[in-house]
């Protein structure tokens, strides 16, 4: 069952361009969760005898096995995340409640992940949880505005070294300083489908900004991918 927990903000990593990662140390281990689930984070004080304050949802970026430290990544795009940027400091106490959500990858067929920007955080727990012996064939299309904002690049490459069935393609809108392995432009279905063994049998998961969710979803359906095989991590 979902639980409400007080946490200490142990670390704030500023990735630049108003993108941050928070490491949160809960007062007790967080409840068991599945890779792909999310948490609610509240900035205002919470009295457990009263109603839950305003909060926003964030993918749990840390793996399910790590229950004593929770990581989330966010980009500033609205009033609440602007408050997070302005108000959160290391050592501060905040409240979270978790776990929630069904954006859980349980496919036995090949898996294709489309991640845009901080949307990668919906997949990092899954990737870190992959076991080399049992992992399905996973293709990750990971895009960001610039190579600097591929903030989980090191982490996913560590996974790829450990799990041979993980294939990664990078996309950067601003290719300045990007490595040759990175494709210029946005994450694209056309660039990914040729890399797949059986595209019509694969399961597709999309996490990123709303225009990307819409665009990738449309492109997949236009290429005869069944709507049931397309899973979108959509938040308000």
């Amino acid at each position, binding site marked *: *069952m979902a639980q409400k927990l007080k946490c200490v903000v142990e670390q704030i990593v500023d990735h630049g361009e108003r993108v941050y990662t928070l490491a949160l140390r809960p007062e007790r281990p967080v409840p068991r969760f599945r890779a792909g689930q999310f948490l609610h984070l509240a900035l205002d004080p919470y009295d457990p005898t009263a*109603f*839950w304050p305003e909060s926003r*949802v964030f993918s749990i970026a840390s793996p399910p096995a790590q229950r004593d430290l929770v990581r989330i990544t966010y980009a500033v795009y609205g009033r609440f995340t602007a408050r997070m940027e302005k108000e959160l400091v290391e050592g501060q106490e905040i409240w979270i409640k978790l776990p*929630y*959500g069904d954006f859980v990858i349980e496919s036995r067929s090949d898996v294709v992940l489309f991640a845009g920007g901080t949307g990668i955080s919906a997949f990092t727990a899954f990737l870190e949880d992959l076991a080399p012996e049992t992992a399905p064939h996973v293709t990750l299309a990971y895009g960001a505005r610039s190579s600097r904002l591929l903030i989980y690049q090191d982490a996913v490459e560590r996974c790829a070294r450990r799990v041979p069935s993980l294939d990664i393609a990078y996309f950067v809108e601003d290719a300045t300083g990007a490595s040759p392995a990175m494709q210029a432009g946005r994450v694209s279905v056309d660039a990914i489908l040729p890399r797949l063994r059986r595209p019509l049998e694969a399961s597709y998961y999309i996490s990123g900004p709303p225009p990307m969710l819409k665009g990738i979803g449309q492109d997949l359906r236009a290429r005869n991918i069944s709507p049931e095989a397309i899973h979108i991590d*959509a938040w*308000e």
Partner: protein
Amino acid sequence: MPVFVDVNLGDYTAIADRLREAVGPKTRAIMMAHTMGVPFNLDVVGELAKQHDLWVVEDNCDALGSRYRGRLTGTFGHLATMSFYPAHHITMGEGGCVVTSDERLARIARSYRDWGRDCYCAGGESNTCGTRFSQQFGTLPPGYDHKYVYSHVGYNLKVTDMQAAIGCAQLAKVDGFIAARRANYDRLMTALAPYEDRLVLPRPTAQAEPSWFGFVITVRPDAGFTRADIVRFLEANRVETRSLFAGNLLRHPAFQGIPHRIVGDLTNTDVVMNHAFFVGVYPGLDAPRLDRMISLFHRFMSGERAAGGLA
């Protein structure tokens, strides 16, 4: 389609070999009760569930606190049910609960409790899913308030805060209640053991440590008296008795003509229906009350049949 199997006399749980025979290609789940607090054979059920990929639902309503191989019943299956009706180990006046260690099943169970709602916000909370106004279900308009989307037909099965408060207070006493029930069972068992030639007395299954719900007695065919005789005598002397609930379900009007399958026969089930009853072991039975109940058993077994005399 439900499949019925016969029970053992004495522990009143399903016969293990019949369970093995009952599982067929269409079997999806095993759903059984730990009758009167006696755990059914969880070794066999676990083995069958694993072998055939079956769901296991434990009806633990009679068995709060019972253990099998040291582990609490209600924790073996995917789901378990509990009853907090007044006659049960703890009470909230009415009500009960479902327990599971699977968050997905918990969400489904909560939804059935809450009219079949798709929304899973806790009371007083909104937009837990983060997509309250941006999903599309069935032929509802896109963005229809998720709080009022019903993904299946459900019920209103919520307990009140008052019931929950009573339940919490009862939980604090549950260990004492269970111990008292066991002590009362032991007392009755010791007192009635000399009559086992005429009465089938309740025995736990192997590996089981029951948290007794009641004390079931089956009158043997050659006892020289009937269940009606002994029940009338006890009731006339103000000792309440009960039949073992519904007995053979298939003999009830509601079940006549339902699609079903029987593995073997239901001979013992009919014996239970025709010859078994139970008396209470509830924690409020103090020594004077138990003494009186036992005294009545002794008098009946000695041949007394007329009511009265001790009240």
